[in-house]
């Protein structure tokens, strides 16, 4: 049972298409795990249509209609043949459908009891998508953020100043927040995170790790 859901604002941005691709993948992965949010999201699409209808119109270039009209008889573009999916490296866990086919770097050591794997999101030049694996009863280094960070728990649980986060739970951190997640439940915790800007880790290991990850 998920307890921490994306904010309505985040769902609205996903609906409008204005979230970065990496952040959208984290929210879509939550939707794959949470029926309530998937239903709320479906209701937002008609809302988008309705809001579009009610937007005040802008002036158009007078020739735009003629130009569009001239293109109506163009041959239709051939359907795009999508490349066969690359073999996905086995990370030892089942990933939600939205990220299941992503190429990854495989697990890399990040510190005692900690590993990360980068997920390839070539369509996002600004935000990174990573999996973090933290051993039982380990504390993640205290860190602040220099941008928006979304974290989704895929396995195990962690606790921080804001509460307890278990499988399916999503947290949003931004510029002002600092937190010190502790992995609980005696089980390894795996999280999916989209990270904008550079992490500002306070601990030495974290600092080292961030230079290895290249965040």
């Amino acid at each position, binding site marked *: 049972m998920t307890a921490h859901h994306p*904010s*309505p*604002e985040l769902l*609205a*941005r996903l*609906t*409008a*298409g*204005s979230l970065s*691709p990496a952040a959208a993948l984290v929210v*879509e992965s939550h939707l794959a795990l949470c029926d309530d949010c998937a239903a*709320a999201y*479906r*209701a937002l*699409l*008609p*809302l*988008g*249509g*309705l*809001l*579009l*209808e*009610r*937007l*005040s*119109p*802008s*002036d*158009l*270039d007078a020739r*735009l*209609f003629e*130009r*569009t*009209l001239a*293109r*109506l008889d*163009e041959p*239709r*573009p051939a*359907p*795009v043949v999508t490349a066969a999916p690359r073999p996905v490296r086995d990370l030892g866990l089942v990933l939600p459908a939205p990220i299941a086919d992503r190429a990854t770097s495989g697990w890399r050591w990040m510190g005692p009891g900690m590993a990360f794997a980068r997920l390839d999101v*070539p*369509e*996002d*030049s*600004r935000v990174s998508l990573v999996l973090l694996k933290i051993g039982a009863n380990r504390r993640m280094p205290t860190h602040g953020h220099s941008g928006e960070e979304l974290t989704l728990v895929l396995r195990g649980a962690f606790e921080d100043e804001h509460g307890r986060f278990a499988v399916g739970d999503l947290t949003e951190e931004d510029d002002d927040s600092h937190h010190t997640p502790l992995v609980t439940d005696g089980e390894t915790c795996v999280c999916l995170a989209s990270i904008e800007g550079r992490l500002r880790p306070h601990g030495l290991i974290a600092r080292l790790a961030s230079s290895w990850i290249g965040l």
Partner: protein
Amino acid sequence: MRPAGANAPPLDGTEAARLVEAIALSGDRQAFARLFAFYAPRLKTFLTRQGFGASDCDDLIQDTMLAVWRKAGQFDVEAGAVSTWIFTICRNLGIDRRRRLARRLRDDLPVSDVDPAPSVEGEMITREDDARVRRALDQLPTEQAEVIALSFFSQSPQTDIAKALGIPLGTVKSRVRLAMNRLRHLLDEPS
């Protein structure tokens, strides 16, 4: 033939659906002109607020309306309103354009023309959903409706909402939550 421009008369959902049907059945260009006259100027507002520049806006409006022309036969009147359909097409094309731009920035490679990711087009939306959302939005206080519109259509929703309502940035999230919860509550009410 010309579209009526920004002062096109309003277009209700039933008429919009009839126009799409006329395009599907007989390639009716008058019907296309009428849809263009209503939607293109609003798509421009949507795309501008999303941060697209003038030439990207023009390209995306053309591509959206071209998709309306080509896919009219696939539009299912039972599966939701024309506005939801057009919104989804335009949104997907916008997402696709941003992605291609980012790929180019990263790889410096030309990227072939791709169809927009239709991640949601196949989702279950019904005409019923549209009608419910319409009723709910109409019952919402103006201020809350505005908060919702801004959180959808603004590039920096937090700042814009704070400015529009004259409230501190820190209270924006709770205002959006309040408005969305109210809307959700209205959606859950039996009609």
